[in-house]
């Protein structure tokens, strides 16, 4: 084992040397790698469909929508924007600094570590990788050991499509991860649970390594009373936001819903109809529905329902298939608020619905819990929308739909509070893996003497004028027309 760790350390050190060589800074290198990612997913599409089907029971359409398509879109976007991203931005300068120029230059951080998660084993590795490469870093990828087939696919295939001296995949479980966390990185990008997030950040503190933590939390969906035509659409969107993405095993999946008492039964009826149409109503023949990643998670979800006070709240579903690890879409009405299901992130196909007298109460309900990664609200009430925006805090807010904020390259994706630190997607991915270096350039002409000691009152007065942008005053003092005012007379 020690030999193995030693080898790992050495290969990681090699990546640092690659970074030092400057090779990864060239824009051509970056573009070649991005094209390599596109080729990888294009040429291996069917393999990936099979792997995702076998590990998570994901249907190819789902796999394309949530994994391959996401990566393709991000890589295309990065390729088309990278020239713009790397060009320096000008900083405005006050006249007092004339002649000078200021700009902000994005430079790569160095050697970065990306730790992926099992629920989207391809996109949660390759999507951040696109950012890290666009920014010109060398990268170590640690896919989740809970989706081992996807992890070994990445480990075997990436070196043939990408520069193996700059991008490396390391497979392994917690032990390997712990070992990796002891190295000095220039950035750690982690997707996973709050608990591990804390460990990652504590380890990063040792080397003052900045972190991006993509965590989760209980993302609520507020459901205002809607007319039937809208309800039909909304129910589809809720179903796809709850069960459609990896059977609820998604960080931005809906965790629970908030609805008014009087509207609850209408909503539940519509959800039942939608579920039957989308997935069928028998756990043995469920279609288009992913399975639970492993037995441990399957049992965890089952135990959430074992509490009798919770079990009696099941209004739909509740069947488990041990052999296929499939759990039927399940709806619960008003489980006790102190039950585990209402306090731990569910991360599975169970949907508690909490009812209230008035939908505005949902704001208080959400604010009594840690800040979620996503907040969904189905409503046509503009005042209520404004109120939600102003009075709640979450990584993102999506009105009248679910999940699609993830697809929008122009929106930062990331949490706040317990749901994470930092953001990515599109330009934000590039920024996450870059240092914004301030560059100020001066010439030797026009030296302002008042900047330098020995100090006197004229110099003080001059600088006051400069800071006040009082250019007339500056001129008068320079020409000797203006005397220092009394107020600035030396005290002693």
């Amino acid at each position, binding site marked *: 084992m020690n030999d193995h760790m030693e080898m790992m350390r050495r290969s990681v050190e090699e990546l640092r040397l690659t970074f*030092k060589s400057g090779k990864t*800074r060239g824009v051509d290198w970056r573009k070649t790698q991005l094209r390599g990612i596109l080729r990888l997913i294009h040429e291996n599409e069917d393999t990936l469909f099979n792997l995702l089907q076998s590990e998570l029971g994901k*249907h190819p*359409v789902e796999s394309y*929508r949530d994994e391959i*398509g996401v990566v*393709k*879109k991000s890589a295309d976007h990065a390729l088309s924007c990278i020239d713009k991203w790397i060009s320096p931005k000008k*900083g*405005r300068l006050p006249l007092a*600094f004339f002649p*000078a120029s200021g700009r902000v230059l994005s*430079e790569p*951080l160095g050697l970065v570590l990306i730790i992926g998660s099992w629920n989207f084993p391809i996109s949660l590795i390759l999507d951040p990788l696109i950012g890290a490469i666009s920014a010109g870093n060398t990268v170590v990828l640690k896919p989740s050991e809970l989706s081992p087939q996807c992890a070994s696919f990445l480990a075997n295939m990436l070196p043939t499509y990408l520069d193996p001296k700059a991008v490396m995949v390391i497979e392994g479980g917690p032990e390997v991860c712990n070992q990796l966390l002891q190295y000095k990185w220039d950035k750690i990008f982690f997707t996973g649970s709050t608990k591990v997030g804390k*460990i990652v*950040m*504590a380890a990063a*503190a*040792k080397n*003052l390594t900045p972190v991006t*933590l993509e965590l989760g939390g209980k993302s609520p969906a507020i459901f205002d009373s809607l007319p039937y*035509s809208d309800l039909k659409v*909304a129910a589809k969107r809720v179903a*796809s936001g709850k069960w*459609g993405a990896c059977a609820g095993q998604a960080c931005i999946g809906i965790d629970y819903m908030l609805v008014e008492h009087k509207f609850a039964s209408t909503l539940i009826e519509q959800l039942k109809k939608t579920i039957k149409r*989308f997935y069928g109503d028998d756990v043995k023949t469920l*279609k*288009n529905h992913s399975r639970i990643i492993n037995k441990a998670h399957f049992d965890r979800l089952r135990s959430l329902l074992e509490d009798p006070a919770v079990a009696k709240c099941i209004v739909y579903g509740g069947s488990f298939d041990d052999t296929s690890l499939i759990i039927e879409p399940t709806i619960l009405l008003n489980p006790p608020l102190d039950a585990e299901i209402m306090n731990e992130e569910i991360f599975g196909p169970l949907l508690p619905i909490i009812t209230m007298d008035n939908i505005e109460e949902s704001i208080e309900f959400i604010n009594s819990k840690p800040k979620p990664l996503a907040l969904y609200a189905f409503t046509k009430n503009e005042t209520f929308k404004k109120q939600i*925006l102003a009075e709640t*805090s979450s990584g*993102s*807010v999506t*009105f009248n*739909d679910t999940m*699609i*904020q993830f*697809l*929008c*390259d*122009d*929106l*930062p994706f990331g949490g706040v*509070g317990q749901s994470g630190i930092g953001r990515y997607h599109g330009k934000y991915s590039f920024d996450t893996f870059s240092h*914004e*270096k*301030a*560059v*100020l*350039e*001066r010439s*030797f002409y026009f*030296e302002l003497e008042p900047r330098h*000691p*020995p*100090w006197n009152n004229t*110099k003080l007065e001059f*600088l*006051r004028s400069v*800071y006040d942008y009082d250019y007339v005053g500056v001129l008068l003092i320079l020409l000797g027309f203006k005397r220092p005012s009394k107020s600035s007379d030396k*005290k002693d």
Partner: protein
Amino acid sequence: MEVLYDACWSMIKSKDVICDLSITHRHHRSFSLQTHASICSLQIELAIALMASEEQLKNSTAPEVFDAEAASCLIKELRGTFVSGKTKSYEWRSSQLKSLLKMLEDSDKQICDALFSDLSKPEMEAYIHEIAMIKNSCKSALKQLKDWMKPEKAKTNLGTFPSSAEIVPEPLGVVLVISAWNYPLLLSVDPVIGAIAAGNSVVLKPSELAPAMSSLLAKLLGKYLDNSAIKVVEGAVPETSALLEQKWDKIFYTGNGRVARIVMAAAAKNLTPVVLELGGKSPILVDSNIDLAVTGKRIVAGKWGLNNGQACVAPDYIITTKQYAPVLIESLKHNLVKFFGEDPMNSPDMSRVGHANHFARLKRQLDDDKVSGKIIHGGQADKSSQKIAPTIVLDAPEDSLIMNEEIFGPLLPIVTVEKIEDGIEFINSRPKPLAAYLFTNNKQLKEEFVSNVSAGGIVINDVGLHLMLDTLPFGGVGDSGMGSYHGKFSFDSFSHKKAVLYRGFLGDAPVRYPPYTPGKLRLLKALVDGSLLGIIRALFGFS
């Protein structure tokens, strides 16, 4: 956990620790007893032990104990204010910034007196580097606040059509600002301006090593600002530890790398994001084809005119070619006399060394056997007045103390190289500094320097000036820190950028929903490709 433990432990063992926080030894004993305590209290205890190991026991008897309980009460009060929504309004933010500006205008003299008492800072320096800087930053925040608070429109794509999107900045909540002693006003108030502008409740912990400013800030902020949302906690290690045990929504720390690690480890416990403004050995590379008269002035002003080298952006050492070194040294000496006179120890235009510890540390760097023979200018040190003369050291060995610790004082080593390009390699072989400076007229060298040297900021042909520009982000990279501030960057530092996507109920694409079919897969691919033809073909069922 072990990782952390090792980190803290190795810090405790290293004896070259500079103690930035004076000590009361109240908690010291509990350290050994609590090795099994939770990760946070362990860190806190370690932090205290770390400080205590410096034997900097200050015999102060605090009138009131600010412990974890007091800190937790304080934060509860501030969170209450934040939750009430009061601090979110534009009116509240601008009224606080206006009061802050008024405070600065009313208290010019008190501020200068405090800075003089803490650091013998000349009034001129106090004005340009502290008062004027924050006035400026306050004014520019007031001017731009409305713009900053406006949601930013974001583009949406075909996949989410029809929709609209925006990015809404929102305050983080209750934030902690821990400040340093070298610019005790600027480094306290400037981050607070960002925190207020972004609509947060704030606790400021000024440095106890600048006691006059610390108590002045407590008094003034108490008098001018809304005390239900903005508080000052004065104190040293126990107070800081008590504060770090609380759950914050952001911690903004200015200081050194050792304490920064403790701050970040404590923040990890609550997943609190941090901004760490640290320092490091900021180099100046001096080429030979330059305007020497101007260069000499700018370097001398940048090194000794910035709080006598006690600034995080102050140049730490110079690299130049062997041939050019003598000419440069002559110019530096000439300007030193011009600026500070023949007897700089008595110049009113020079700050003193901030603290007895720092004086001892600088003295140690000077008295190092490897260095004492290399002093070519200055070298005088007077313990009673805590003043050290501007000192130039030529070719100190790479393994000497002065070439490995951040100097943070009036000593300036000059490293000579054969070719000026070797300087870049020298800089890159060391931890990333907060600033890197280059004096040259050679365009190619400029380009090479800008693209190959990694530092928080780079200034060509001047020193420290980037700090004054609020259009440039100010902050470090690697060992010099993380996160940035100044101007809009301060506002962003204390804001969460909330992504907001609006959808209507029209235009629902069935492709997203099960039951899944091969046709849906084709349409989805076409959508991702953004190929209109592909979409039409898929919609009509052609493949």
